[in-house]
């Protein structure tokens, strides 16, 4: 067991599968770290409201990430990316379901660059819809994050985390969505 510690914030809107992503990350990371803590949002917020999940992997005791401390902010919605940017650590990864950084003003883009943030933008919803899996944008974006090197685990471990214990058809569909995201991340 290494002394790996890694914090991330996963954000989006109710119905986009935010919690699925943070749970998948937790499953992928669990064998490598001392402890896993996730914070989730349930209840009324899930009805189309903003959903955010904090993930802390390592020797932590509290379930919430402090501002300026997340190695990665992964957002299934550009607006929610902006809302949660304060959690990003200097030099951290911003992974967003968007064709480009057009959701930020020129001033916002400059602030992001001078913060040393590494941005990965992938039109995950569009790619998922084209693949006939409108609800699969979350897995596409996860594939992009893994391929871009935003995660402290190999893409293979992410694949294991989201396919284990699933029926073969579902596992295959998820593998395809991951590959779709990986391809888009490499192109970008």
């Amino acid at each position, binding site marked *: 067991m290494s002394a790996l510690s890694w914090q991330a914030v996963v954000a989006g*809107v*109710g119905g986009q599968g935010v919690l699925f992503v943070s*749970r998948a990350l*937790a*499953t992928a990371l*669990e064998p490598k770290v001392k*402890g*896993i*803590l*996730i*914070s*989730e*949002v*349930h*209840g*009324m*917020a*899930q*009805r*189309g*409201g*903003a959903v955010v999940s904090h993930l*802390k992997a390592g020797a*932590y*005791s*509290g*379930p*919430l*990430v*402090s*501002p*300026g*401390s997340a190695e990665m902010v992964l957002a299934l919605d550009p*607006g*929610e990316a*902006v*809302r949660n*940017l*304060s959690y*990003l*650590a*200097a030099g951290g990864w911003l992974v967003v379901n968007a064709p480009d950084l057009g*959701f*930020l*003003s020129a*001033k*916002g883009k400059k*602030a*992001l660059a001078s*913060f040393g*943030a590494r941005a990965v933008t992938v039109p995950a*919803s569009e790619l998922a*819809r084209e693949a006939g899996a*409108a609800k699969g944008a979350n897995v596409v974006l996860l594939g992009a994050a893994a391929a871009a090197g935003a995660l402290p685990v190999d893409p293979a471990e992410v694949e294991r985390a989201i396919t284990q214990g699933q029926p073969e058809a579902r596992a295959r569909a998820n593998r395809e969505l991951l590959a779709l995201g990986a391809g888009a991340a490499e192109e970008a």
Partner: protein
Amino acid sequence: MSAKARARKEILMGNQALGRGLVENGVAVMTAYPGTPSSEILPAVVQYGAELKSPPYVEWSVNEKVAMEVALAAAYTGRRSAVAMKMVGLNVALDPVMSAAYIGVIGGMIIVSADDPGPHSSQTEQDSRLLAHFAKLPVFDPDSPAAARDLVAPAYALSERHQIPVMIRPTLRVCHGRQNLNLKAPKELGREAVFTKDPFRWAAIPKMRLALHQALNAKLAKIQAEVSASKTLNTWHAPVRPRARLGILASGVAAALARDLLAELGLPVDQGRIPFLQTSVPYPLPLGPVNQLLDSCQRVLVLEETEPVLELLAPRRERLWGRGSGHVPSAGELTPEVLGGVLERALNEARLKAPRPKGKVLSVPDQPPMRRPNLCPGCSHRAVFFSLKKGLPGGVYPSDIGCYTLGLNQGAVDTCHDMGAAVTFAHALSRSLNEGEQATPVAATIGDSTFYHSGITGLVNAVYNGARFVLVILDNETTSMTGMQPTPENGLTADGHPGHAVELRKLVEGCGVRWIDELDPYDLGETQKTLKKAWRWTQKPEGGVAVIIARHACAAHRPAEAVPAPCRVEVRGAAAPVKTSFKPKLNPCADCGRCVAICPVGALRRTGKGRIKVDKAKCTGCRLCAQVCPTGTMVLEPAGACVACGLCSTWFACPALAADSEGYISIDRDWCVDCGLCAEVCAQGAIAPMEVLS
């Protein structure tokens, strides 16, 4: 399978961890009423209990008072029981809770009351630990999912040793946190249920209650001594040292987060610079270790959620920094953002320097607007609220607790207070508003589960006292907001044990209601007609409370049934807005005032008998006035295209109806479920069903 083989490591949600803890410690009877953030505890007991030869008895009770009493009397028989609820449910259960400490139990009993600092999904930020203190019940305060599981064993042990129920108070971050933990084997205690007659205890009269109260006080003193001496319930993250400028006393999630924040500031607790005592027992407060901390530190910062409990119970309050001194905010969750500020201020004032500067925080100017939660696309509640506004315009609409509170977005929810208040508020408001000539329609909405929970008594009261209003029971045969728990209506039980359905219509009849109609709210025209008919009946001499049961499957629970005739809608291209015109010369105005009452923007004004003035600057051209005008005096032809009137956005509020910057509507295919309801909402004929889908 051996017990060892069943032990394994898993990432569990806090509520699952609590359920696991209960099953690992031999819970035999578990009751609950769902409520965020507590709803997943009982299903976890069902899930893990299935690993046992004879799984525990579990039930979704009709409300928290009932749940409390069922679990309490089960513990009278020597078996271990548990009850779970959210903290406002504890208010409902408070009556039996207050006596529970006096009379006590034989088998261990755990009351789980889940708090919601924030609040994220609740009416209040109340602190169950204060109610535990009020009721004289010991309370444990876990800081993580693992701690929640681990506290079940000592809670049962304490409960049985002193024959007193014990509360475990997790907060939302514990309940809906996830953590990896080692599972222990589920356990069956195999205790025979025995009820030993002891009327002086189980049916104590007031005179005996005094003796019981005295005995309870002695019990609590013993418990306090025990928890004071406990090494497992109190943790010194950093030991006391003489003349420390600052110490920390904390419990719950605030204690866990404070440890992380101190590490981020370069003051990790294991370096021991700031004495740090965490207790799992806010009440009775472990005075031994607390006094040790207070003896050695000049100041002690108290960190806890949501009310001051440690702070109020601790001696030498002049040394404490907390809510009383203004160091800790008195409302809201102690997030890292808030707690970070609290710690920095305390370190500064204690003249302690944080070795590590605070990390940089990125700020960008492009903050998005707050995102309001909304009813799901295809939800039949949306149809009810639309019909309510159209059928009974200008009415007052009390509502209740559940998904349908989101009818707020449609302007069709005027009050939301506590479970069941839709009925009692409608009673009070209709009586007050309609004492004279004025006849303001009052139509309340309440969900099926909420009606079974607390609506029945209010309805009996309203009927008995001659109230006149319309009550719409939104019946989707499930408890949607909290995760689709079954209701008494379908007779399904928490774990599938045999039960019996309690029919909603018969129940309403049994409450004395003489006017009942059942309908499918997807039929908007029929719903509006029925609402009008119901209101008219309430105002007749023989009238009273009219109940409409609006029955439709939940769009999240049974999506296929919720959209019975899927059709693809399109919005026809933009047309120039056309404004309403009032033409009294063509048709005589009936002076009924319907147009004025229904206008969503207040653009119409009555200027004299049979004369309506249209404020063209305000008029959006939505055509509602023309639709309700009985004489055809109010004239506005459908545009056959979107005129950006905004009616569908404000009165229907479906997330699939996206408005551009000028207000013209398009269908967001990511959200649309092809229910086709918006086509009927649009009075312009702009939103039109294009294609019937199979």
